[in-house]
C-alpha cells in the first residue's frame, strides 16, 4: 500500500509537469501541441549530451535543457504558430502545424541523436528501504522532490510575478488582456517558451532514470492529452490534478492488474471515456456550451 502511494506520488509529480506545459500552451493560444512529447524527448537528449556525454554537472545540463527548449518554443511561436493563428481562425490549422512539427522534431532527433535508447550515469546511488514497505532508489526520490519544487515554483511564478499575472490575464480573455494593455504577442511567445521549457525540464530530469529514446515522444503526448482531459483543458490546477490522478492510476494498475497482463492502460482509457461521458469538461474545466 505504502509502495503504491510512493510510486503514485513519483509518477504523478512528473506527469503533472508535462501536463502543465501542455495546458499552458493550450490556455494561451488554443493550440493543441502535438509536439509536446517530442519536446520532452528533446529535453532529455540535451541533458544526455551535456551530462552523459560531455560530463558537465547535472544541474548545468538541466539548465541547458530548459534554455534550449525555451528558445525553440519561442521561435516556433514567433515564426510558425503566431502567423498561422493571425491568418486563420480555424483551430484545425494550428493542429496541422503542430502535427507537422511533431514529425519534424522526430526527424531532427533521429538525425542528431539516432534511434538508440540512451541513458546517463545515476545522479545519486543507493536505495531507500523502509522496512520493505517502501522501496525507492534515492535518485527517484530526488527527481520527485525536484519535480514538486518546480511545480511549486511554477505556481508561485504564475501567481505573483508580473509576467505570470499577464499570462493568466491572457489565458482568461485574449481581447480583454489586450485592452488592459498586455502585449499579447510578446506574452504569447513567453508563454509558449515557458510551456516548452517545462517539457524540456521533465525530459532532462527523467533521462537520469528511464533514459530516453526517439519513440517516447508520441506516447508522452498521448499521456499528456489524457491528463489535460481529466483535469480540464487550460486549467492549471486541472493539469496538476490530472497528472496526479494518472500517476496514481498507473501505480495502482501496475500493482493490481499486472497479473492479468498488460491491461492497465486499457483500463485507464476506458475509465477516461466513461468519465468524459459524464463530465465532458473534466474535473476543473469550465463547462462550455
Amino acid at each position, binding site marked *: 500500500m505504502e509502495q503504491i502511494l510512493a510510486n503514485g506520488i513519483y509518477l504523478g509529480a512528473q506527469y503533472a509537469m508535462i501536463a502543465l506545459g501542455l495546458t499552458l500552451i493550450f490556455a494561451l493560444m488554443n493550440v493543441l501541441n502535438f509536439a509536446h512529447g517530442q519536446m520532452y524527448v528533446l529535453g532529455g537528449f540535451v541533458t544526455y549530451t551535456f551530462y552523459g556525454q560531455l560530463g558537465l554537472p547535472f544541474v548545468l545540463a538541466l539548465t541547458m535543457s530548459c534554455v534550449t527548449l525555451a528558445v525553440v518554443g519561442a521561435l516556433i511561436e514567433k515564426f510558425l504558430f503566431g*502567423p498561422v493563428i493571425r491568418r486563420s481562425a480555424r483551430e*484545425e490549422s494550428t493542429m496541422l502545424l503542430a*502535427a*507537422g512539427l511533431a514529425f519534424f522534431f522526430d526527424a531532427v532527433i533521429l538525425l542528431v541523436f539516432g534511434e538508440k535508447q540512451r541513458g546517463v550515469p545515476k545522479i545519486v546511488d543507493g536505495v531507500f528501504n523502509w522496512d520493505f514497505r517502501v522501496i525507492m532508489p534515492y535518485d527517484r526520490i530526488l527527481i520527485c522532490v525536484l519535480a514538486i519544487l518546480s511545480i511549486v515554483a511554477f505556481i508561485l511564478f504564475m501567481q505573483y510575478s508580473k509576467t505570470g499575472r499577464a499570462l493568466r490575464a491572457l489565458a482568461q480573455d485574449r481581447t480583454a488582456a489586450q485592452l488592459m494593455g498586455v502585449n499579447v504577442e510578446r506574452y504569447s511567445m513567453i508563454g509558449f517558451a515557458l510551456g516548452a521549457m517545462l517539457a524540456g525540464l521533465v525530459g532532462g530530469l527523467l533521462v537520469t532514470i528511464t533514459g530516453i529514446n526517439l519513440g517516447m515522444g508520441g506516447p508522452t503526448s498521448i499521456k499528456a492529452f489524457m491528463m489535460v482531459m481529466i483535469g480540464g483543458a487550460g486549467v492549471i490546477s486541472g493539469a496538476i490534478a490530472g497528472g496526479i490522478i494518472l500517476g496514481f492510476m498507473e501505480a495502482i494498475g501496475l500493482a493490481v492488474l499486472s497479473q492479468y497482463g498488460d491491461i492497465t492502460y486499457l483500463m485507464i482509457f476506458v475509465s*477516461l471515456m466513461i468519465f468524459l*461521458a459524464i463530465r465532458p469538461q473534466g474535473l476543473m474545466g469550465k463547462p462550455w456550451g
Partner: protein
Amino acid sequence: MLKLTMGQWIGLGVFLAAIFIAVPALIAASGRTDFYFTLTSVALLSIASAGVWLMFYIGRINIGQGAFALIGAYVSAILVTKAGMSFWLTLPIAGLFAAFVAVLIGLPILRLRGVYFAMISLVLTQVVTLTALALPITNGAKGITSIPLPGAISIFGLTLVPDFASMENSRLAFYYTACFLMVLTFAAMYRLVNSRLGHICRSMQQNEELAASIGINIAYIRIVVFAISSFFGGIGGAMFGSIAQSVYPSTFVVTDSVNFMLNCFLGGLGYVFGPMLGTLVLYFGWDLLFESGKYQLLIYSSLLIAAMLVLPNGLLSLRLDMFRRSGK
C-alpha cells in the same frame, strides 16, 4: 440523380479512364508493377480519409480513424480465417461493425467539441491498439497472418469476380477493386455533400446551437455521420488487411490516424475530393522521398509545415485561385 455540368461529366470520364485504363497501361509499359501496391494503398487510404473529411464537415476533428481501420481489418481477418467466410462478405460486415462501434463510442464522446474531441479520438486509436494486444481472438502482438486471398464471387454459376489466388496478377485485381471502392465512396460523398444532407452538416459545422434551434436533431446527425465515417474506415482497413494478408496491432497506429487527418487538410477541407488528392500527394511524396534516405522524414515534415504556411486552405484551393484569376 446526379446533376452534373458538361465539364464535370468530361472530368469524371477522364478521371475514370485514367485510373482504370491509362494507369494499368502505363504500368504495363514501364514494368513498374510495384506502383500497383502504392496506388492501391492510396485508393484504400483515401477511402478512410474520406470518412475523416466527413467528420470535418460536421465540425469534428477526428484523429481516431486508425482505430476503425484496425477494427475493420481485424473483423475481416477473423471472419475469413476463423469462420472461413468469403472475404467479399466480410468486407461490408467489417464496415458495419466499425460503424456499430462508432455508434456506441460516439454516444458519449460526440458531445465533445474542438480540441476535446480531437484529443479523445486520438486516445481512441491507442485504445483499439491496446485492445488488439490484450484480446485472445486477435492473437496479441503476433497478429493474424496468412490470411487467404479473396475468393471468387459467382451468382447462378456466373463468375463475376474470379478467385484472386488463381490469378497470375492479383495486384492488378486488388488495384481495380480498390479503385472501384474509392470511386463508389467518393460518388456517395459527392452526392451527400451536394444534397440537403450536406447543407444540414454545414449548418452544424458552423453553429450547433443554431442548428438545434431550427429543429435539427444534432445528436442524431452526429452519430449517423460518425457511423458513415467509421464505415469507410472499416472498409478501407479490411481491404488493406486482405492485401497485406496479415493484420497486426501496429497495422494502424496513432501516426496513421494523424496521417488520415493530414490527408484531408492537405487536399483541402472545403473540397469533396480533397482527401483523395491529399492522400495521393502525401503517400507518393513520402515514397518519392525514400531516395533521400535518412533525410526523408525531415524533408517531408518541412514540406508539410511549409504547405501549412503557404496554403492554409489545402491544395485544391490553388485550382480555384487559378479559375478566379482567369476571370471565371
